């Protein structure tokens, strides 16, 4: 009976198992699967490429020298391969950037999430997003030709290339990332926690600091960690404004190179494929990847935890 009515409505052969249709479905699913797996392949390719070239590098240079030598002069006749000067430049510039980005980003996030009226938030959020979209090379230009002269007006002895202005501009650049993630974390805190706090007579500020922020702690921590990993990996601002001379210093008033700036410097020259200079950028890149990977994993773990709370 059911069979009869079906054949009346639909011509025979249109329904039921169709080999061509099945083949098409399988083909498409395979393509989609391949494109999803590609992201894993990219990650593996990155790691393999960096490890492969670094491996050749570490046959010339011992890991001990790499980690403890205080000079980085791979392109000189008297070559030294100590990563420390590059690490110090990276640490100092990132530290200044975070000194700007974390407090300001947090304050902006608290303000937008807990204090600002609806219209202010609706205008400020897209504006911050636009700020995050400005190309980094433009921020580099700004650091070198605007912020450095401004700082030199206060400290005339400040050199034209310095870590301070690069770090400050980098900090401004990272604010949107920190503030938007922190705000998301704070807005994910359920309303009834705030209501409970207000009912006890707490003010907005007390609620924000003592109730909402602790509740959003792991999300805020994840935002901070992503901010750190962005600062460490930032390239163009430091390459333009901090000079590209490796310099083992903790003084932000000096010019210095970061890990990323060194890679840029070498790439601008004409190094033959397979030379030791070519391999140094992969060793530097591997160091950078390991640092950011550690931060990313911590951030991921923290975010996962905060998602599970509510």
């Amino acid at each position, binding site marked *: 009976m059911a069979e009869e009515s079906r054949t009346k409505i639909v011509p025979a052969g249109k329904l039921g198992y169709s080999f061509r249709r099945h083949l098409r479905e399988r083909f498409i699913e395979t393509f989609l699967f391949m494109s999803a797996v590609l*992201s894993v392949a990219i990650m593996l390719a990155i790691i393999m490429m960096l490890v492969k070239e670094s491996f050749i590098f570490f046959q010339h240079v011992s890991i001990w020298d790499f980690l403890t030598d205080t000079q980085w002069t791979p392109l000189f006749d008297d070559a030294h391969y100590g990563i420390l000067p590059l690490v110090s430049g990276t640490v100092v510039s990132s530290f200044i950037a975070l000194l700007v980005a974390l407090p300001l980003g947090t304050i902006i996030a608290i303000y937008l999430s807990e204090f600002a009226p609806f219209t202010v938030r609706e205008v400020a959020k897209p504006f911050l997003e636009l700020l995050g979209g400005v190309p980094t*090379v433009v921020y580099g230009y700004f650091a070198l030709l605007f912020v450095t002269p401004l700082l030199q007006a206060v400290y005339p002895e400040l050199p034209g290339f310095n870590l301070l202005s690069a770090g400050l501009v980098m900090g401004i650049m990272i604010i949107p990332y920190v503030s938007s993630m922190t705000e998301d974390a704070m807005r994910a805190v359920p309303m009834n926690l705030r209501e409970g706090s207000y009912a006890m007579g707490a003010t907005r500020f007390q609620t924000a600091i003592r109730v909402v922020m602790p509740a959003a702690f792991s999300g805020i921590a994840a935002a901070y960690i992503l901010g750190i990993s962005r600062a460490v*990996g930032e390239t*163009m601002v430091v390459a333009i404004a901090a000079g590209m001379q490796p310099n083992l210093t903790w003084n932000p008033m000096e010019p210095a190179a970061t890990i990323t700036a060194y890679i840029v410097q070498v790439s601008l020259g004409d190094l033959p494929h397979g030379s030791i200079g070519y391999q140094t950028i992969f060793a530097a890149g591997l160091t950078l990847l390991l640092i950011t990977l550690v931060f990313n994993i911590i951030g991921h773990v923290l975010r996962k935890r905060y998602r599970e709370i509510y």
Partner: protein
Amino acid sequence: MKSVNNLEEIRRIISLHKRWDLLFMIIGIFALMIAVLTFMALFAHMLIDGMPRLSWDFFTSFPSRRPESAGIFSAWVGTTLVMLVTAFAAVPLGIGSGVYLEEYAPRNLLTEIIEINVTNLAGVPSIIYGLLALGLFVYQFGFGQSILAAGLALALLILPVVIVATREAIRSIPVTIREGAYALGATKWQTVSDHLLPYSSAGILTGIIIGLARAIGETAPIITIGALTFIAFLPPSPIKNEFPYVSIEWLTAPFTVMPIQMFNWVSRPEEAFQLNAAAAGLVLVVMTLAMNGLAIYLRYRMRKNIKW
């Protein structure tokens, strides 16, 4: 702990604490103003320096040793071609991967690895993608320091952006749409291609625009590939007079892009070149702001119009 005797006392304490609210409001607005004013200063500085250099000639001249006659012709043509390659590679792969993770993926270890990995890829510094492209595309695959290698490097870089946007757009479609399609006998792919992709197209488009806006401004990976900064010629034209009329020769041509051109001018000591850098930066900022603005507008429209 202070003991509180009556209502008056409590009111007094609360109103005392409310002063902190006001203080923090002021600090908050101040912090926001720092971000806003910095951007204004950046834009104004570039406008003052760069505006006089912006003319028709600036867009149609090649870079030159004489700063007054230098322009960004090869740079914006290069950027356009690189973006073509990037979009061509990242869009299908990103959407495919997003669709797979939302609609097809079984709940297993591999899926989890892919998901964690997409998050991780988004956190890898852009210069690392440059190193990957240098080792893999430039030397291993033998693409050379070409438009193809640069385009693919940037495609890998923005892939996570497209994947995440696709997933979020598809996830927001109610499950009833899928059930309706399946009830009428649609296959999985018919459901995806006839319903899910059309309904999520605005969200996916937003992600693609944001990704491309990011790719346009990326400098570090392209420097790492070894793009030349002084290119006084155009890549071979993609359209030919003879049969087969289209050519892919331009894919392997040497090139320069806008941010590289700007970087090159910034690094010169002569002030005249730095004015050129300001002008190039102005073009770059206006381009990325316009793209990001379009994306924000699209998202705003979407949120307002779609009610399931």
